[in-house]
């Protein structure tokens, strides 16, 4: 989350709300978009982002309800508050889009990402990598005499931190899924 996180939760369109000095602050928002799982739907959503010059920091998509053929697209995007509002409105009018939720402003939410790290090395580096993996609760899912593949889930920040630690210890390859997120609480 942005260190400059400003007052959030407002959906007001008042010019006076929007014209404050925070207006140009770049915020990071996590959007959950429920869409019909039909051919090309992902292209519609990401085409809108590229066509209108919006950022995509992370993107995940998979069908979440086989009966209703609904997929959930989780997009982490950045922009000024105005731009974020535009993104939500623009995504919301794509025909196969059912719902757009801004998890960043709609209340507390949890975000998780899964990552795989291949770390190559022998001797002390290898021992240190394994020790740090335990601290970070990363699992070893593949091993050779010269390498490990670690699997970990956590917030993007935690994954970044682990990657930073692994880099000097022989990190050779990383795969990340991007963020999946849900609102906290009992309601859907």
């Amino acid at each position: 989350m942005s260190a400059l996180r400003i007052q959030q939760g407002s959906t007001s369109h008042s010019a006076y709300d929007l014209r404050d000095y925070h207006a140009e602050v770049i915020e990071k928002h996590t959007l959950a978009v429920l869409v019909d799982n039909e051919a090309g739907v992902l292209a519609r959503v990401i085409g809108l982002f590229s066509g209108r010059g919006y950022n995509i920091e992370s993107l995940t998509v998979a069908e979440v309800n086989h009966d209703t053929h609904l997929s959930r697209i989780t997009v982490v995007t950045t922009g000024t508050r105005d731009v974020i509002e535009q993104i939500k409105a623009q995504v919301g009018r794509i025909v196969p889009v059912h719902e757009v939720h801004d998890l960043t402003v709609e209340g507390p939410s949890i975000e998780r990402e899964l990552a795989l790290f291949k770390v190559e090395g022998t001797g002390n580096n290898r021992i240190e990598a394994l020790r740090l993996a335990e601290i970070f609760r990363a699992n070893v899912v593949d091993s050779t005499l010269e390498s490990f593949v670690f699997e970990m889930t956590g917030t993007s920040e935690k994954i970044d931190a682990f990657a930073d630690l692994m880099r000097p210890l022989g990190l050779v390859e990383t795969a990340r899924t991007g963020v999946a997120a849900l609102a906290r609480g009992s309601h859907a």
Partner: protein
Amino acid sequence: MTRQMTGAKMVVQALKDQGVDTVFGYPGGAVLPVYDEIFQQNDIKHVLVRHEQAAIHAAEGYARSTGKPGVALVTSGPGATNAVTGLTDALLDSIPLVVFSGQVPTFMIGTDGFQEADTIGITRPCTKHNWLVQDTDKLSETIHQAFHVATTGRPGPVLIDLPKDVQFADGEYTPPAKAKVSHYKPRVKASIEEINNLVSLIEKAERPVFYTGGGVINSGPGASQLLRELVDATGFPITSTLMGLGAYPASGKAWLGMLGMHGLYEANMAMHGCDLMINIGARFDDRITGRIQDFSPNSTKVHVDIDPSSINKIIRVDLPVIGDVGHVLEDVLKVWKSRGRKTADTSAWWKQIEEWREVRCLTYKPSETVIKPQYALERLEALTKGMDRYVTTEVGQHQMWAAQFLNFEDPNRWMTSGGLGTMGYGFPASIGVQLAHPDSLVINVAGEASWLMNMQEMGTAMQYRTPVKQFILNNERLGMVRQWQQLLHGERYSSSWSESLPDFVKLAEAFGAKGIQVSDPKDLDDAIMEMINYDGPVIFDCLVEKHENCFPMIPSGKAHNEMLLGDASTEGAIKSDGAVLV
């Protein structure tokens, strides 16, 4: 009872069930089965255009002048790519279209087959939605859904891509009543809180202005009626975008004329000086706003729009009202009346507006030797006033002059390419309008350069005996390009001459139409009457002043109150930071 039929037959059946009477199209290998079905029936008229772009523009003209969705049919590959300009035009101007494109059979998709193009991929950003139908059983439902999407909410073009094997295969036909409509149901009623807030603002405003747009037209004739009632009851001045002309009658007392880059002085000054701006169905387009930072600096801004993404996109507004214009106007009127029809005193505001009107910003230097383009349009207006008249335009100076000098009393009478600014729009659009209104006078106000972009449609006009009048203001220039080069590029007229022009009279005669050329102002009236009275297509070659500029003009990067009113005020008017804007 289930009805089995081929996909091709389903297309025709679904069109009939949707009430379609006219389809504009051009055949090709991948749509032959549909053409075969069209051949075997008489309910739907197919109009053969001479280029697929024209099919879409004709369908747009049909749609804008009737309020019904326009329908077009093109083949795969080049047929579909030729349609792209028209689709984009319809998307930017929110025109409901349902376009069918042929496609190579499903088993050939992705093999770079003959006349294969990724039509869905290519048209995704220029349609409201599109569908590739891979199963004949789903075809009829998809077509009904396409009509629903095109005409619901903010209207727009949709496309259905039809692989050839899907057209040949049998499937079950679903009638519209049984078709599953998608979840797509945009909100049309505004909240009562929004309505109350808007009424409160109306009650208190001392310098109000209505700023209306194409959304009023799209909302239907009822919305225009309600707008007239509200404007007349409140006595507030009203201006409109290019797209919204006719929603409020030009003869109405409160009418200020069009606003924007080439809008009227009084309209733009009222926008700049108002304390309450009520935007109804317009979108703060950059042709309207001028320099954003100085746009109407002291007003409370209300924005009524059916599309939430229009809100705060360009101009931050104080009160967004999301809903269909017709519903919103109805509710506003109801609440405003029930609260006692209150308004503040706007007489001082009107006095100010009268002073701005006194500037007479459309004044031009008349001539007895050469036809001024403004004069030609003044005479066209005078001689066709009161007639059952529809006007289309191409894009450029003539378009702006037409918007300034022609008066529209009713909605759906004015068809022009606003958002995309598509040269070549007007001629095919006029054919579409004429086919929808066979007994009306349909005039395409054109420049010679724009008109040449789709001149092949003379064949269509002749074949279907559409007596469209092509009123060409011929200055042998790309007038608006020339004007910008004069103002912005040191009078270096790079490629803005119309070289090697045809003899338009002979061109008309070559197609079997009538050609009229006029160059003397004294002959103009007679020539216009001859054009009107001729029963058939006319190319009217009106040779006008070659170097006339279109004023008023808000130069790029300037504010509403920094308008140029004539040539004398243009020197050094546009600074380099304005020159980068279009």
